[in-house]
């Protein structure tokens, strides 16, 4: 039973017809996690409750009861989403022993739909990073080449799906943290519209940018997961009341007449020639299927990285103020006063990148600099959002590379934060504008590394985005199984 070759819908049918048991699928996933433990994709596995839920599903199937939509689907959760009683670290030492008293809404919805939660995946500390090297629990390795990073910050979730340890996973995307690792690991990764999925129970990084979304082996599975997790939640006031489409149903239909915008600003300096070639080839396939390719311009693209690193860090510096050694997690023991306790706890509890971002955000919000930095960034953010609205006047989706290069080597960018930040250059604009984006694999580089193409859609128009992605996926016929796993049988 290779999870890589099984769709969520087909597994449900196999369990219902008693051809497969949920328990054997679950054991298979746990076996794979164990076998590939050197990839370090998981911080915590939840074998016992997972097997218990699987047994329950098998009993229901035995009795011929109707099974829920995601019955038996093995799902991994990025370790920055809380799950009652299950250690949740956000990749940080400061939360090394935190056992949340409640569960994130997105996880609750998955469980209610019959999904089996297999564990919590490794990530950059507080989702701050593009390589999953900034985890207090060690770096994650790419199953296509273990000397390389999986991307980040949701690297563990991307690897879990790529390596067949799970059929799907949840990640969070603040500046590309779902789409960029999906691209580097050869799987599908969707960042929905801001507010489409409840953030209740997601440990906050940049609250005006953060969004939970799925990783999957196919667009079909990503749509099935989105069907379950999307929609209003009274526990997150920024979750939207906008109508939730039937995303699985939206996959049928072709792309004839669909207008695909190609923004020239995304194909310039810094883009790897092979990534450019594969992205352009994917766009060509859409054209062959009847889509209309149009040139569009997003003129403020070059300002997106500076805007992002002011807004995200400013919001992070406020959000991370809660980690002070009082209510949960690590506390420095040697402090004489409360203030010393705060400063030492945070100094020893946070890693270098998190401290760097707290410093930058605190500076951008501090007296005398607020208008020049944070205020200015909010204004340029408005210009970036306006660029997209203008572009969507003449197109229905926008096609770009997901990341400027395929997976890079561990340690390659570790000493140069700015260079690392630039690996999110094509993804952060969708977060700034609050619109959905999806990455899907479109080929391999000459040295066998996956390359992703990104499609960006209108606000709350995941239906069109997924339909376009589904058509492209079928035309490309990419096998997302890393060679090491394929050979394993």
């Amino acid at each position, binding site marked *: 039973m290779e999870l890589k070759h099984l769709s969520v819908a087909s597994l449900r049918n196999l369990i219902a017809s008693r051809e497969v048991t949920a328990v054997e699928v679950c054991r298979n996933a746990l076996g794979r996690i164990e076998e590939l433990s050197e990839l370090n994709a998981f911080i915590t596995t939840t074998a016992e409750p997972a097997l218990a839920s699987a047994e329950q599903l098998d009993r229901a199937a035995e009795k011929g009861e109707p099974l829920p939509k995601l019955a038996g689907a093995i799902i991994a959760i990025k370790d920055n989403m809380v799950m009652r009683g299950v250690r949740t670290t956000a990749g940080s030492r400061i939360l090394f022993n935190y056992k949340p008293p409640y569960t994130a809404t997105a996880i609750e919805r998955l469980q209610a739909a019959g999904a089996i939660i297999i564990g919590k995946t490794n990530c950059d500390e507080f989702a701050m990073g593009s390589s999953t090297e900034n985890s207090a629990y060690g770096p994650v390795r790419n199953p296509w080449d273990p000397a390389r990073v999986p991307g980040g910050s949701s690297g563990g979730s991307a690897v879990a799906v790529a390596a067949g340890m799970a059929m799907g996973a949840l990640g969070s995307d603040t500046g590309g943290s779902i789409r960029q690792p999906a691209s580097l690991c050869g799987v599908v990764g969707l960042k929905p519209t801001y507010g489409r999925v409840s953030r209740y129970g997601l440990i906050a990084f940049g609250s005006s940018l953060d969004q939970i979304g799925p990783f999957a082996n196919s667009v079909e599975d990503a749509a099935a997961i989105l069907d379950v997790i999307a929609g209003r939640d009274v526990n997150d006031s920024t979750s*939207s009341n906008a109508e939730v489409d039937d995303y699985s149903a939206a996959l049928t239909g072709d792309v004839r007449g669909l207008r695909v915008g190609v923004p020239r600003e995304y194909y310039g300096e810094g883009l790897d020639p092979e990534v450019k070639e594969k992205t352009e080839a994917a766009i060509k396939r859409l054209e062959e299927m009847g889509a209309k390719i149009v040139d569009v311009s997003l003129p403020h693209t070059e300002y997106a990285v500076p805007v992002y690193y002011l807004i995200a860090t400013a919001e992070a510096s406020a959000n991370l103020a809660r980690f002070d050694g009082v209510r949960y997690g690590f506390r420095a023991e040697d402090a004489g006063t409360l203030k010393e306790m705060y400063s030492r706890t945070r100094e020893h509890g946070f890693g270098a990148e998190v401290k760097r971002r707290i410093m930058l955000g605190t*500076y951008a919000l501090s007296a005398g600099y607020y208008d020049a930095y944070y205020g200015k960034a909010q204004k340029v953010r408005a210009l970036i959002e306006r660029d997209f609205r203008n572009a969507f006047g003449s197109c229905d989706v926008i096609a770009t590379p997901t990341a400027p290069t395929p997976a890079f080597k561990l340690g390659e960018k570790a000493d140069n934060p700015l260079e690392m930040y630039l690996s999110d250059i094509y993804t952060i604009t969708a977060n700034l504008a609050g619109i959905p984006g999806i990455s899907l694999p479109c080929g391999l580089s000459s040295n066998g590394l996956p390359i992703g193409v990104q499609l960006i859609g209108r606000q709350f128009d995941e239906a069109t985005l997924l339909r376009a992605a589904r058509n492209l996926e079928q035309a490309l016929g990419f096998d997302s199984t890393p060679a090491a796993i394929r050979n394993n049988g």
Partner: protein
Amino acid sequence: MPISKADVEKIAELARLELTSEETESFTEQLSSILEHIDKLNELETADVEPMSHCSTAGGDTEYARRDDVTRPSLGQRLAVENAPDAEAGYFKVPRVIGG
């Protein structure tokens, strides 16, 4: 705009981070180089642009979730302090606030 070591020390104090001297050195250099990149924003004239503070202000047509203002069960004192490094009788314990 380059920032000085003194700036970094002041920000660290505001952010409640007791940085080592090596960290102060490296952050001074790294934050200066990041801010230099950020200064690119000054190329743009934005006097007439309304700042965008949130995505709900973007499309203008999105209504976000509200709930009725009624009391609901809360976490409760026992669970609220369960993860605390130091707690007693349902309270968080901390080092002394003043003096020292």
